[in-house]
């Protein structure tokens, strides 16, 4: 087995389950299946910087291949695919009800839904992607649904 294989859901002979699979996705799209690699020792091209010499690499595809490629390039790589849930939401007003981060300065690391740590990026237009700890993902998903409901009122 590869180093820290027990971290990676893609190493298992079982289908990964999203932590918000059971939450009605009324105001978000669940993209938790995306691969998320925490990289130490620099910020590879295209990655989201999350601290000094730290980055989050989002992978829509072969996570293991990307992990091995980054490791070969000299980075220390830790698979956070299962550690972070990912939600896509639409609309700046909704985002302004979720966070006080400056939306013109994304991607950013900060708090959403009153104190939940998150990595937030814009994926084009008014579409945003939120990466949140999976243990708080249901809470965040419910807050997103609730805030979206408030905007309809």
């Amino acid at each position, binding site marked *: *087995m590869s*180093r*820290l*294989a*027990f*971290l*990676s*859901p893609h*190493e*298992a*002979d*079982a*289908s*990964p*389950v*999203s*932590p918000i699979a*059971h939450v009605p996705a009324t105001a978000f799209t669940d993209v938790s299946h995306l691969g998320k690699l*925490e990289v*130490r020792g620099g910020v590879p091209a295209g990655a989201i910087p999350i601290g000094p010499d730290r980055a989050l690499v989002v992978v829509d595809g072969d996570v293991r291949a990307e992990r091995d490629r980054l490791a070969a390039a000299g980075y*220390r790589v*830790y*698979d*956070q*695919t*299962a*550690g*972070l849930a990912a939600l896509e939401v639409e609309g700046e*007003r909704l985002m*302004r*009800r979720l*966070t*006080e981060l*400056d*939306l*013109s300065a994304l991607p950013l690391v900060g708090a959403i*839904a*009153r*104190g*939940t740590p998150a990595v937030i990026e814009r994926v084009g237009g008014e579409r945003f992607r939120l990466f949140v*700890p*999976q*243990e*708080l*993902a*249901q*809470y965040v998903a419910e*807050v997103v649904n*609730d*805030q979206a409901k*408030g905007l309809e*009122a």
Partner: protein
Amino acid sequence: MRLAPQAGERIDRSRPISFRLEGRVVSGYEGDTIGSALYAAGTRVFSRSFKYHRPRGLLCCSGHCPNCMMTVDGVPNVRVCVEPLREGASVRAQNVRGSLDHDLMSVVDRFGGPFTPVGFYYRTMIRPRRAWPLYEKFLRSVAGLGKVGGATHRRYDTEHRSVDVLVIGGGGAGRRAASEAAAEGFDVLLVDEGHAFPGSGYEVLAPARALAVYEGGLVPVDAGGVLYRVRARRIVVAAGALEQPLVFPGNDLVGVVLPQAVRRLVSEWSVQPGSRAVVVGDGTAVPYLERAGVEVAASVERAEQLAAHGRHGRLKAVTLDGRRISCDLLVAVGARQPAYSLLAQAGARVEYEPHAGVFVPVDLPAGVEAVGSAAGTGRQQPVPAAYDGGSDKCFVCVCEDVTTKDLKRAIAEGFDSIELAKRYTTVTMGPCQGKLCHLSSIRLLAKELGTDEAEIGTTTARPPWAPVELGLLAGRHLEPAKRSPLQRRHEQAGAKMMWTGQWRRPHSYGDPAAEVRAVHESLGIIDVSTLGKIVVEGPDAAALLERLYPNRFADLKPGRIRYGVLTTDGGRIFDDGTVARLDDELFYVTTTSTGSSGVAEWFEWWNAVWGYDAEIVNLTGAIAAMNVAGPRAREALASLTDADVSNEALRYLDARELRVAGVPCLALRIGFVGELGYELHCSAGVAEHVWDAVVAAGAVPFGLEPQRVLRLEKAHVIVSQDTDSESNLLSAGMPWIVKDDKEDFVGKWALPHAQVRERLVGFTCDVLPPEGAQVVRDGRIAGRVTSSRFSERVGKPIGLCWVQPDQAEEGTTIQIRWEGDVRPATVTLSPFYDPEGALLRS
């Protein structure tokens, strides 16, 4: 009465709206406020005053004064003069015994005067002391500002905004400032209390009220159900000036109004405000009165003598400079006080301008500007502080019913500074927060004390500037709950859940005792995904851990596990867990459920201080963990993996990566619950698959409650339950952890100074004492019980408790006290179950 349709009116006469006043149907039009519709329908008395229950009518008609506060759809203190009319609204009077027109409590106004001077409740009502609660209850019910109803189902939201320029106030000056800033390319937001209008190149938020200015340019804005937290690089205050009522006898009679009330009633809602008017002060209301067909009996810019006379609280006549004029409307205004409060909150100084008779803002802080009349640049003739004479009461403050007599009396009693007089009389402390009475009270104080207004000064401007519903400040009820990746399985199994910190965890699955037995006799599984999990990797990883922990890790062999306790610089215990060495440069550390982020930060901090090359990665969320324990644990694990899990290949305190049911796992052979057991750590995304497989192999899920019994049988300590912020390794009975011969570790210097005032020991007792029960010695408290449970295995209640050091001997009898009873207990120093740990190694 409505006027004929006119250009610019806000009402849409083709769209009538009906609502109810005290159950009676009233109608108005789209575009009306509740206040304008009621006024058009003939309502003149809108409320009864705070203390004297005097009838009150519209005064400012701008949402400042308390006179039109009513209960609308159960929400108290709604200023109906600015509340948009909506179909079916139910409007009720508040602070009334009877009806608005006949309030029984108005006897206070007629006869209560001598008995209810200012501050009377501080003097007459405190004796006898015992009776105060009754007085208080009575006073609370007869005085006041409406009742908070039951739960309302209003929604409150919070929205964050970040702009270049925030303009507060949408009058001429505000609009001009907004368009200029927009033309320069800035992102501009304008907030206004009135109705919405299209901005030219900038965004308008209305109706909305800026509540305060906080540091960093943070301005909370109340927009009804939404609180906007606006952060602005530049704040332009264009809040205008506030028309100040004149202070004269009878100045609160229904029919005494400010010019803006006339202007708004006539031009916005086409309502005739009265039939015969007297105008005192600037003549801005005169054209509107004329347009509305109101006879203007007299209009003077400045009165030397002024008094109003009424019957049943309504204006009937005015005495103006010796002339008695009958009228039903008195439009009277004194100074126009610049609305400086937000500026003062932002840090501006406030100075008295004697030529205008108002306070003006000066020395504005950087990034804050004042434009228009808020800047206080206009000139005006000062008016008298108060007109004396007349038989009726002369109000300084209509919110709290404070009269000139009250203020004079307060001064006579020695409350002669504005801050003291304010607190004693409550002037400026009512719903208007001084908008209409702050200036008057200062001027009156200056006059009475024979000094000037600059000497008196102002009271401190504090948020909120406008009244705000508490619900809006509280916002949505959001309580973060952490969920394990196995939460669904617990819910499906009908687990009884309990809060532990932010986590919801299974207390048990129905029968804790049966779950304990399953672990002892067969096989159990518990979700321990809440444990903190941290990877420490790098050439210096071993050196880092060696220096962080009191015990030794440098000599830990790959594939082996050691229990570790973390202490602070002062040698106090703050977390514990296991450390597994997976590789020369790779360690896997577990922490307590609440400790993960604290420990990770602690590691990172020291790593940086010492300059080691080690990565610290908090993987708590990415990894699920479950403890599979019981005599059948090995057999079950063997059935799920190809790896050799024999006692020779996977020894007690071995760590091994293997596949369980096709899922890569890190198996840690440790024994928190005292039986042969394996902690399986795997990716959170596939945790359910592993859980299901182990359960299918015969494991009985057990919760926290049975786990607490099991670990107590082993006398295993739970950090922060059995220890507190004062506990050190010696007092907690873990001297074997400390490796004194190590050159350095965090907390080492404190060890020689460590005091052992108490010791943590086990005990047995014939009756189960509650956790927190006192250990007593010679009638004095000598310790406490930190954990206690009934153990079927031991056959009696067992527990852990703190005792005095000389009692920490095997077999000592101690006394435990709870609910008045004192019972003997016996100290036990070794685990209650399998003291040699033979089962763990088997």
